[in-house]
């Protein structure tokens, strides 16, 4: 079909034009700056990416990257405590940040005319964060509440946490990004100051600005604002390499819940490895929508599960995981569902996928790449995350890499990485909730003690 060929060219053109539109500059202090002129809407996104996440944390201080992320909003000598977001919003902006195992990212999105204002705020907190004890103590409690909200009371999150702690023996990917509760309770102000000094230096960061900007006008302003921040010592390298897995690992979590869950993960390489493309395709063939194999077989045909999916992302500094997960329907067991997942893994190892499946996965990945450029925020996020774990320039070759994958490649990576002795299996075993209380409209007296 000619149309497919045309489409492939078109997607290629979009990838190429992205590369041409990014202006990369490295300041003398080591800060990498990526600027993208994207004038289709009168907005700008300013994103600062630090190459630090939970993989950099020592045991006993897990979650400290995330704790520091919270403190980055708590003031400098010029921007008082709690004033950062207030100032951003007063200028019509939205701001937030997030921490992962591999990076910590800060963003401010504004109408385009506020770009310098946002950059000043970002430069200020890179150089002059205060970390006041008075702000730190309540913020620690906020983070503990965040842990309760996101992890403790969500059965799937608890299972994921235990699963990663089992899949990794040695590598710090084994601990949760938010940190273990006892560690969150234990950091001192000095720990945070030390961590900030170690990792929040210009030579460990990438600034991405995308939107309705003029690169030529903006770059000198960025050089003036950030150029005066001194380079820091090189941050310590993570030396731990996860040893090869020698046999299946199984773990269960018993928790108040309604239905079981089944998670299966395998060790898999990151986006610097040539197999990353075939693994992306494999994840889509198995889990890329309702027509993909896991949904078709387990949800639609056999009616074993209410959902079944596959997950792979190479955007990690070190080798991470290829995952499968499924939720049994009422009356079906975790064991049946687990076996059904393996049946699909074995099928993809035994027989090559069809040409149409291969082409569908390629089309999905290419389309996703184009749709991601609809939002300057998402575009900048793609550049920042790839640069933080390896290099944004790998994006230029991404669609080429996807396009050259063959059915034999997919079969080979399925055989190589999805081996029974390399897998970690985590099962949620629901325990019964207490009987629900009867609906009661309490005759409360004004509701005020």
């Amino acid at each position, binding site marked *: 079909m000619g149309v497919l060929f045309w489409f492939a060219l078109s997607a290629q053109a979009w990838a190429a034009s992205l590369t041409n539109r990014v202006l990369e500059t490295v300041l003398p202090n080591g800060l990498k700056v990526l600027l993208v002129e994207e004038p*289709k*809407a009168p907005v700008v996104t300013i994103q600062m990416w630090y190459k630090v996440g939970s993989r950099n944390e020592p045991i006993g201080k897990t979650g400290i990257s995330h704790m520091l992320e919270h403190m980055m909003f708590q003031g400098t000598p010029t921007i008082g405590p709690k004033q950062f977001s207030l100032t951003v919003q007063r200028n*019509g902006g939205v701001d937030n940040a997030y921490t992962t195992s591999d990076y910590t990212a800060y963003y401010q999105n504004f109408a385009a005319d506020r770009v310098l204002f946002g950059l000043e705020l970002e430069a200020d907190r890179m150089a002059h964060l205060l970390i006041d004890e008075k702000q730190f103590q309540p913020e620690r409690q906020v983070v503990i509440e*965040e842990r309760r909200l996101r992890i403790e009371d969500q059965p799937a999150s608890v299972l994921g946490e235990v699963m990663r702690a089992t899949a990794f023996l040695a590598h710090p990917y084994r601990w949760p990004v938010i940190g273990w509760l006892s560690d969150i309770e234990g950091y001192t102000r000095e720990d945070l100051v030390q961590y900030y000094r170690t990792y929040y230096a210009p030579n460990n960061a990438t600034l991405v600005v995308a939107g309705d900007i003029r690169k030529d006008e903006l770059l000198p302003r960025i050089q003036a604002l950030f150029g005066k921040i001194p380079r820091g010592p090189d941050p310590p390298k993570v030396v731990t390499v996860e040893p090869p897995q020698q046999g299946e690992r199984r773990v269960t979590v018993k928790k*108040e819940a309604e239905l079981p869950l089944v998670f299966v993960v395998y060790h898999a390489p990151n986006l610097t490895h040539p197999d990353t493309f075939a693994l992306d395709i494999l994840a889509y063939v198995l889990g890329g929508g309702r027509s993909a194999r896991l949904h078709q077989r387990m949800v639609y045909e056999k009616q074993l599960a*209410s959902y079944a999916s596959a997950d792979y992302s190479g955007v990690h500094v070190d080798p991470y995981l290829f995952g499968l997960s499924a939720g049994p329907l009422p009356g079906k067991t975790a064991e049946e569902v687990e076996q059904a997942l393996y049946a699909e893994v074995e099928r993809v190892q035994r027989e090559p996928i069809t040409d149409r499946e291969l082409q569908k996965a390629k089309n999905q990945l290419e*389309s996703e790449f184009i749709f991601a450029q609809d939002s300057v925020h998402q575009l900048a996020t793609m550049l920042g995350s790839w640069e933080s774990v390896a290099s944004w320039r790998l994006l230029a070759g991404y669609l080429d890499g996807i396009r050259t994958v063959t059915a034999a490649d997919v079969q080979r990576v399925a055989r190589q990485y999805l081996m029974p002795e390399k897998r970690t299996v985590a099962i949620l075993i629901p325990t019964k*909730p207490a009987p629900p209380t009867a609906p009661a409209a309490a005759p409360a007296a004004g509701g005020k003690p």
Partner: protein
Amino acid sequence: MRRHRGAGLQAVVLLLLVLVVGPGQVLAAALGQREVLPNGMVLLFSEKRALPILTATMLIQAGAIQDPPDKPGVANLTAELITQGTTARTATQISEAIEFVGGSLSVEAGQDVTTVSLSVLSRDVDLGLELLADILLNPTFAPDEIQRKVQEVLAGIQRTQEDPGEVATEAFAALVFGTHPYGRPLEGTQASVPTITREDLVRFHQANYRPNKTILAVVGDVRLADLKRRLEARLGGWQPGGSAFTPPADPAPLTRPVVRTIQRDVTQANILLGHLGVTRDNPDYYAIQVMNYILGGGGVTSRLTSKIREERGWAYDVGSAFTPDKYAGTFSVSVQTKNQTAQDAIDAILAEMRRIRDQPVTETELADAKAYLTGSFPLRLDTTGKIVWLLANIEYFGLGLDYVDRYAGFINSVTVADIQRVARKYLHPDRYALAVVADLAKAKLTP
């Protein structure tokens, strides 16, 4: 948005809007065009050629509010099933066709409307529209597909029970709305869903999936004339009709605090506190939004966040919202805090509701709220997905395509006195609904 549209629009009024985004910056912006097609469907359109993509959102007046009173869940099950087989295609053929081109086609029921969303690369517009038309016009509601979806929906309802936030939301809606349809879960219940028959679904589809009950917003890399020709070819045969809808009687306001507590083995109490709010056409709508921004809508800068999160560290997330649905609205404050501080958080929420009623807000607070609400408007229009959503909702709520032009004026006209007036009129710290999902022995609530 700065770019001007090309020619070829003789039949359509092109609305050139002046969008004020901040002091000194004025942008000419064409938000979109509106047209009523011969079969009664309203089309909103904006051409965007920066990327080879097309995004469409369809709002059909086929929400849970149209459910038969004794069978909650019909609208949801209908929405789930229209992609599961037509006279021309099986369920798998539909999903395979759209996924093969890297597109997406999804249907989701809400309380008021069912939303159909289509995203495709622009070269696949024909395929996308063909599938869209097929699922709207020709669903078969095959018995084995119904049986499958009933099982999935029941599993979903069951799994919801393990999410404390969802459990609290459901309990809160029941307290606020009582017997009004908004008080029922839109998926239906474990009891109601198995009683839904094929005839219920066919009847619901016939009555409500009609072009005269439908808004279609399209944004992307296509010319209007092309789009209209394709819509005529695919949807021209879609017949207007269906039954008239009589809105339910207004829900009765609470007359005193009502409390529902639910035991779970959780570390945090999930708390929802609130009462009836306002509909979108309330003349005080903008004053209410500014007031709520100061109270709890303004993210980390709001009073509730300041008291509960920043000063005390009691919660990661606390916020308030006035949510306007078509026939009634809700005011709600949501917070999650460790069981032991549940009552403290509730007391703080009520205290802030009283304070904004009893004392005028400061000029600075008002100025900050206005600066954010008006200054952030460009961020509400910076992707095709956001523009298509805004176009559809402008039409649904009858805001007019000059809404973008008038919005800043609405916000900027609000005064300190307005804030206090609407706080007194629309916040009720003496008659509210309170839903709490917690480990109750630890939470020690003192209602």
